C-alpha cells in the first residue's frame, strides 16, 4: 500500500470521527391550525411566538397551515380539518371546541395529534376521556369556566346593579354551556336577569336602549352568532351608560369592558405550544394530561370612569391587568 493511500485512509478516518457529533434536528413539521372565532386569532400569533422560542422556526423546521377565515359552523371546520388532513399535517392545533371536534373527527383512526386550546369542559364535550389520561390522539388546554365568578367581580365593581343583561343566542352551543353556570349563579348574586335570549345582533342591540337603570351588560364569550355585534354593543352600552363587563375575552378590545375575567391568549397559547413541543418530541397525547388555563382579572379604570364607576381597591388589589 502506498503512502498516498495511507494518507487518504487516515484523512477519511478523521472525517468519520469528526462526524461523530450529533446533528441538529432538521425534521420538518407541518402544523394545521384551525381557529373557531376570528378574535381568537391572537392565540395563534402567541402560539407561533412560543413555538419559535422553543426552537421551531417557521419555514425552517416548521410549517403552519392556517386559514383565519374558516367557519363559522361545524361543517366548515370539518371541511377545513379534512383539507388539512389531505395536506398531510403532522399535528393539529385547534382553538375552540368545534374546531377540536372537527380535527378529532378528521384524524380518527390515525395517530396524528390534536392539541387544543382552549376547550371548556373537554371531557363533557367528548374531546378527551379524562383530564389526567386523555386517551386517543387529542389533548390540550382546558378552561374551567369561571363566568359566574366574572359576573360576581362585575357586580362588586357595580354594586348598585339590580339587573343584568346577558345577551345570548340559545343556538350557540358553547355560549349555552357557559350560560348554564351563569344562570345558576344569578339568584345567589342578588340581581335579576333581564330577558337576554336573542337571535340576532340587531335584536341584541335593540335591547340596550331600553334597559332599565341599575343594569349592567355582561358578555359571555364566545358568542359566535352575535360576535359581529359585540363592538357595537359596547358602543351602545357607552352611549346609554350601561356598564359592560365580559368574561373570557380581552380587556381593551371591543366591546371594551370595565372588567374581564379570563384566560389570556399568551397564557393559553404558551401552554398549548409547550404541549405541542412535548408531543413533537415524542410524548403521546393519550398520556399527556389536559392542562388548565389560568384565569386573570383585568380591569379598565378609564372605562369604569366612563361609566361613572369607581373600582374599589379590593378589586384592584386582585386585578392582574389594570388599564389606566
Amino acid at each position, binding site marked *: *500500500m502506498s503512502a498516498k493511500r*495511507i494518507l487518504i*485512509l*487516515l484523512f477519511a*478516518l*478523521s472525517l468519520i*470521527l469528526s462526524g*461523530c457529533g450529533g446533528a441538529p434536528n432538521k425534521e420538518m413539521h407541518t402544523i394545521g391550525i384551525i381557529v373557531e372565532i376570528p378574535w381568537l386569532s391572537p392565540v395563534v400569533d402567541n402560539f407561533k411566538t412560543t413555538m419559535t422560542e422553543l426552537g421551531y422556526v417557521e419555514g425552517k423546521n416548521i410549517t403552519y397551515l392556517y386559514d383565519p377565515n374558516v367557519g363559522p359552523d361545524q361543517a366548515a371546520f370539518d371541511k377545513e380539518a379534512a383539507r388539512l388532513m389531505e395536506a398531510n399535517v403532522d399535528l393539529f392545533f385547534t382553538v375552540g371546541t368545534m374546531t377540536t371536534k372537527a380535527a378529532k373527527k378528521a384524524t380518527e383512526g390515525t395517530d396524528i395529534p390534536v392539541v387544543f386550546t382552549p376547550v371548556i369542559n373537554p371531557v363533557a364535550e367528548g374531546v378527551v376521556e379524562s*383530564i*389526567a*389520561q386523555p386517551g386517543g390522539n387529542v389533548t390540550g388546554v*382546558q378552561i*374551567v369556566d*369561571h363566568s*359566574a*365568578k366574572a359576573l*360576581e367581580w362585575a357586580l362588586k365593581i357595580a354594586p348598585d346593579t339590580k339587573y343584568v343583561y346577558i345577551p345570548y343566542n340559545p343556538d350557540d352551543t358553547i355560549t349555552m354551556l357557559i350560560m348554564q353556570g351563569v344562570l345558576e*349563579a344569578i339568584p*345567589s*348574586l342578588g340581581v335579576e336577569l333581564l330577558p337576554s335570549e336573542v337571535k340576532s345582533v340587531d335584536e341584541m342591540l335593540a335591547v340596550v336602549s331600553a334597559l332599565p337603570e341599575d343594569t349592567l351588560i355582561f358578555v359571555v364569550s364566545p358568542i359566535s352568532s352575535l360576535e359581529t355585534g359585540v363592538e357595537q354593543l359596547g358602543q351602545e352600552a357607552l352611549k346609554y351608560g350601561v356598564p359592560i363587563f365580559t368574561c373570557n375575552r380581552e380587556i381593551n378590545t371591543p366591546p371594551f369592558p370595565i372588567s374581564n375575567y379570563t384566560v389570556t391568549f399568551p397564557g393559553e397559547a404558551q*401552554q398549548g405550544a409547550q*404541549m405541542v413541543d*412535548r408531543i413533537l418530541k415524542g*410524548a403521546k397525547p393519550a*398520556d*399527556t*394530561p*389536559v*392542562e*388548565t388555563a*389560568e*384565569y*386573570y*382579572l383585568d380591569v379598565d379604570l378609564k372605562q369604569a370612569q366612563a361609566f361613572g364607576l369607581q373600582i374599589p381597591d*379590593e378589586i384592584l*388589589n*386582585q386585578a*392582574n391587568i389594570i388599564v389606566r
Partner: protein
Amino acid sequence: MKKSLLTRLTIYFIALALLPLLLFGLISASQTYNTQAAQALTGQSEVAKRVAEQVNSFMQLRENEMYLLADAGNLSSLSLDQQESLLNGLFANQSVYEELTLTNSRGRETIYLSRTKIIETKDLVSRAGSDEFEQPKNSGKTYYSSVSFDEATGEPYIIVSIPLFNLQNGNLSNVLIARVHFKSVWNIMALADATGNGIVYMTDADDFVVAHANPSVVLQKKRAVLPPQNSFATGLDGNTAAIAVETLTLSEQTFYIVAEQPATQALSLAISTIALTLGAMLVAIVIAGVLGTYAARQITTPIGKLAQAASLISEGDFSQTADVQSQDEIGRLAVAFNKMTQQLRDLIANLEARVAVRTQALSSVAEVSTAASSILETDKLLQQVVDLAKERFNFYHSHIYLLNEAGDALALAAGAGEPGRQMVAKGHAIPLNREQSLVARAARERRGVTVNDVTQAPDFLPNPLLPETRSELAVPMIVGDKVLGVFDVQSEVVGRFTEADINVQTALASQVAVAVQNARQYDQTQSALAQSEKLFQASRRLTQSESLQGLVASAVEALGITDIDRVVLGGLDYGAAGELESMTIIANWSKNPDLQATAVGTHYPQAVLSSISLFTSSKPLFFNDMWNDERVDETTKALAKRVNYRMIAALPLFLGSRQNALLLFEGAQPHAFTSDEIRLFNALAPQLATVLENRRQFERAQKEAAREAALNLINQKIQSATTVEAVLQIAARELGHALGAPMTVAQLSVKDKN
C-alpha cells in the same frame, strides 16, 4: 480456521498499538468517570438544596404573608367586612392563593373567599375536627397539609393554616386557612438552575410528583422511585441519572426535592474520554492495521512467494524459483531456497536417470527371469540367461557356474558367446576354496563381490578368451540357504559395477537360481516318473517270468544297467535249526557267452558263505569297483579278481524275515550306481523274492505232479501185464526210465517153488 501469517502479524501490530492506549484509556476513563460522577452528584445535590431552599422560602413567604396580614391588620379584632377586605388583599397574589378561609376559635368558618367560586353564607361550614383547624389550634404553629389534587383541573394544592391569637388574652381567636396553589412551585422547578439537561422536581411523602417543570408529569400523578442516597439510579424518565435528593420539612409534612441529571450528560466528560479513547483506538487500529499490514506484507509477501514456489515445487514443478529481491534475511533465505531447489532439481534429474537405468535393469531382470522361468532344461536355461544378460545389460561377458554335487567346486555350466561355449566345452571349473577367485569368493561369502579394475587386482589371471575384461561382478545363485552356483558378469569398462548393479544382478541371480532349481526339480520329477515306469515294467516282466532263468533275465532287463555282465541267483538252504547251511545257484544270466555266469546247481557250503561277506549281508550292497572298495574284504576282492568282475550289486531277497535267496549282479567294468538305480534295486527286491518263492513253489509242485503221473503210468502199465515176467519187465523199464537209470534189473524170487 487458521489465520494467515499476514493476519496474525497485523493483529499483533494492532495489539501492540492498542494495548497501551487501551490501558491508558481505561485508567483515564475510570478516573474521569469517578471524578465526574462525584462532581455530578455533588452538583445535583447543590441544585436540590438550592431548590429546596427556594421552595421553603416560597412556603415561608406564604406563611409570613398570612401572619403579617393577621398580625399587622390585627385581623382578629376586625369586623367581618374588614376581615374580608383584608383577606382579599392576599388574592392580589392570585396565582398562589386559591381560597382563603377564616374560622372562629371553634372552627366555624366566618369568611370563605375563592377566586373561582361564588361563596354564599350558606356555604360556610365548621372546620372543627379537621387537621387544618385542629393542628394549628392545638400546636399554636403553622399547619401544612399533604398535597391534594383539584378535581376539575387535576392540579395540586396544599392547605396552609395558621392560628390567630387574641393579643389581650392570648387565646385562640381564629384560624386562617389558605389553599395554596402548587403551580407556583412548578415555576420554581422550571426556573431552577438545573445542571445542563437536568430536571428538578418535588415529591410528597408518598413519592408523588407534586411539582415539575413539565405539568404533564404532575397531572399524570407520576410517582418517583427515589434512591436511598445520592447516586446514579433510574430517573423519572426511566433512564439512568445522577440523582440527588434533598428533604424539605414543612411542619409535619415531608417533601423531597429531587435533582436529576441524565447520566449521559452527567458523565459526558467520562463518556467523551471513553469515546475519545475508543476513537483513538479506532485510529490506532486503522493506523496499526495499515502499518501492520504494510510491515507484515514486507515479511509475508516474500514468504508467500517462497511458499508458492515451494508449493509448486512440491507439486512437481521444479522449474520454479522464488522471486525475492530483498537483501535481508528473507532475501538470503530465498537465495538459499533457490539454491536448494536447483540442487533438488539436479538431484531429481539424477535420480530420474538412475531410476530409468534401474527400471531398465529391473526390466531386463524381469525379461531374463521370464525367459529363464520358461525353460525347463537346465543347460538351455543357463545358456539363455547368460546370452540375454550379456545383451540386455550390455556386458562384455557373462557366464554361470554351478556347484557340483560334491559341493567343492564350481563348474562352468554356461557362457555367453563363443568364448563361453569354449570354456564350457573345456569343462572349466573353479574349486570352491580358491582364494583368489572372485567367483568362488561370491559362493563362499554368499554375496555379490566385484572388482572394478581387474588390472589392479594382484591375483588377476587374464583370460585369453576374454581379453577386454576390466571389471567383474560375481553374485551367488542362492535358493533358500543353498548356493546353486555363481552368476559372473564382466565389463570392458573400469568401475562399471556399482552397488546398485550388485543388487540388480543379485536379484537376477536369485531368480535364475530359482529357475535352475525348478528345472532340476522338473528333471527329478521326470526321472522319478521314468523310474516308476521302469519299476512297473520290471514288475510286470518279473511276474510274467516262466522260470527262474527268465526271472533273472527279466530283472536284468528291468534294471537297464548296461554294465551288468552276469547275474546269479543263489538259493539259501537252512538247517533244521534254522542256521544257514549252504547256497545253491538256482538261476543265472550272462550277457556274454564268453563270460559265463556261475553254473546253476553250483553249491556253496556254509564255510564258503561265511568267508564271502557279501553273500551273507542282510542289506543290499553296491560296489562301484570291488577291486578298489575299502568295504570289501580281501577274500572277496580276490574272488572278484579271479572271476573278473569289478562292479557288483548284492541284493538279498527276503521272504518274511528270512532271507531265502541272494541275487548278484556283476560287471567287468566299474559302474557308479546312481541313487535312482539303488532305489530301483531296493524296489525290485521284495518282488523278486516273492516271484522267486512262487516260482520255486510252482516248480516244486510241477515236479510232484510229474512224479505222480509217472507212477500212475507205471502202475497202469504194470496192471496191464498179464504175466509176471511182463510185470517185471514193465516195472524195470518204466522205473529205470523214470529214474534215469541206464539199466534196470528186475528180479523175482520165489521162496517156495516146490
